[in-house]
């Protein structure tokens, strides 16, 4: 009985992640539009976009191979699994044994690999540009992410997100400079990975600047819907990771009963709203940087990760 209940909660979490992801993106777009004194699309617009795309016919390029058709499903599946593993409203769920941060980085890495292959598959020059830029970003963002993961797991003594969240709430952590550096590094990586403004503009199709949009230019219909849904999920995933590790307060712990879960869900929604608001403000006040500056930006993130790990050894001596 207990196992069945745990499984239900876990399944509920997977569905909640899937259901909330388009809402978060719609919310960020709405706040950005309001900051620019525009009306903005309604909050539910991403859901409508996805529905419309699913109903549309798929148009395939003549020389598209099987890879091109398979890639969207794989990208969506790996991203969804990664997003479902991250603790959102409750920690210590039944799948949390598998919610290892390195595994999540690897899942996202394979999704990116498939996306880059799909971008190259049709053989258009845009897809090629997009893929090569994406790989350039990835080659710096992934090590930076891993350094942040190392810092966190050295502090918490585990790479599991649930145990990291638990030890962050514990008394032994305190105020640490490494944590601050890791937070800044993780935010920079999240901005780059989600193709947000200083690195890439999610709203434009201007060919000189785009990275993510260039790779999916040839997709249409349900394939495009899956890729879009995967990118919504990715944004939610990064926000959830940051919230789970750095703002773990208010999260329910598995087995506390329904009340705790509902309270955890409310607090999680509040965290998402705050993070979305901050993201929108940040994107409004900053200008997009040139593609060749991206390596500096991510190099700084990597540097922060290194520094965080290094400074951990200074404070370890105490």
């Amino acid at each position, binding site marked *: 009985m207990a196992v069945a209940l745990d499984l239900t909660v876990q399944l509920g979490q997977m569905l909640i992640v899937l259901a909330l992801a388009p809402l978060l993106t719609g919310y960020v777009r709405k706040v950005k539009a309001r900051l620019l004194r525009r009306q903005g699309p309604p909050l539910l617009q991403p859901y409508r976009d996805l529905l419309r795309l699913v109903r549309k016919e798929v148009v395939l390029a003549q020389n598209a191979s099987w890879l091109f058709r398979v890639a969207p499903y794989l990208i969506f599946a790996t991203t969804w699994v990664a997003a479902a593993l991250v603790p959102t409203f409750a920690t210590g769920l039944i799948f949390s044994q598998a919610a290892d941060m390195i595994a999540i980085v690897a899942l996202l890495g394979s999704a990116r690999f498939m996306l880059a292959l799909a971008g190259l598959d049709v053989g258009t020059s845009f897809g090629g540009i997009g893929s090569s830029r994406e790989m350039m970003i990835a080659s710096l963002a992934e090590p930076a992410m891993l350094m942040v993961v190392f810092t966190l797991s050295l502090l918490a003594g585990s790479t599991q997100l649930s145990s990291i969240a638990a030890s962050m709430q514990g008394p032994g952590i305190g*105020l*640490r400079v490494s944590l601050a550096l890791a937070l800044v590094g993780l935010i920079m990586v999240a901005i780059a990975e989600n193709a947000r403004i200083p690195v890439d503009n999610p709203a434009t199709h201007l060919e000189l600047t785009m990275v993510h949009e260039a790779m999916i230019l040839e997709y249409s219909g349900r394939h495009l819907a899956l890729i879009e849904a995967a990118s919504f999920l990715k944004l939610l995933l990064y926000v959830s990771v940051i919230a789970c590790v750095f703002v773990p307060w208010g999260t329910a712990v598995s087995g506390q009963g329904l009340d705790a879960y509902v309270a955890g869900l409310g607090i999680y929604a509040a965290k998402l709203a705050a993070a979305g608001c901050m993201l929108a403000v940040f994107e409004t006040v900053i200008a997009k940087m040139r593609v060749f500056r991206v390596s500096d930006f991510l*190099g700084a993130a990597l540097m922060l990760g290194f*520094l965080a790990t*290094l*400074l951990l050894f200074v*404070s370890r*001596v105490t």
Partner: protein
Amino acid sequence: MDQLALDVAHLLAGGLVLASFMLLYQDRMTGLINTFALHALVVSFSVAWQAYIQQAPHLYITAAIALIVKALVIPLALHRIIVRLDIHRTIEPVVGIGQTMLAGIGLVALSVMVMLPITAQAGTLAREDLAFALSVILLGLLMMISRRNAVSQVIGFMSIENGLILAATGAKGMPLVVEISVAFSILIALIVIGIFLFRIRERFETVDIHVLHEHRGEQP
């Protein structure tokens, strides 16, 4: 309380190292000067916190000097200088931010490796502060050798002085007289360097110090 005091001191000192890295990363003149003001602000907070936990009231004066002179007066003067020299819009060609950052991380690692073993008897706070201070000093030196613009070199020099202050306050017991004289010598250095900058500029119509090498007959 004790643990928290230590953590805050640690956070501020680490923040100073981070500000040094931000100095290395900046390539715009105004941004560089603003980052230097931030650097000085962090140093003054750090010194004030040391004054609070060591119960050493004279350190508050050091913090106030750092705040007024280095976070306000010197940045404002530098802003005026770069406007007068008409270089406030230049983007400095920093060669290889990536390599500079890597070298910087190497220097931080070096100072941690050097400082922690040789200060084994000292208190925890002093050890960490000394390690961080040495990194700030080395990063300032790195900044001085990696930049070509004379104004950025001046800023690198001033960030070294901030590192010295951090070391001195962490080690308990720098007399106030020394601190005041150091602060004034920095101010005088600024004036001298400012005059010097205008002289270079008058003669060569640029503040790029590579022109000096050519003038001496060295190969650039």
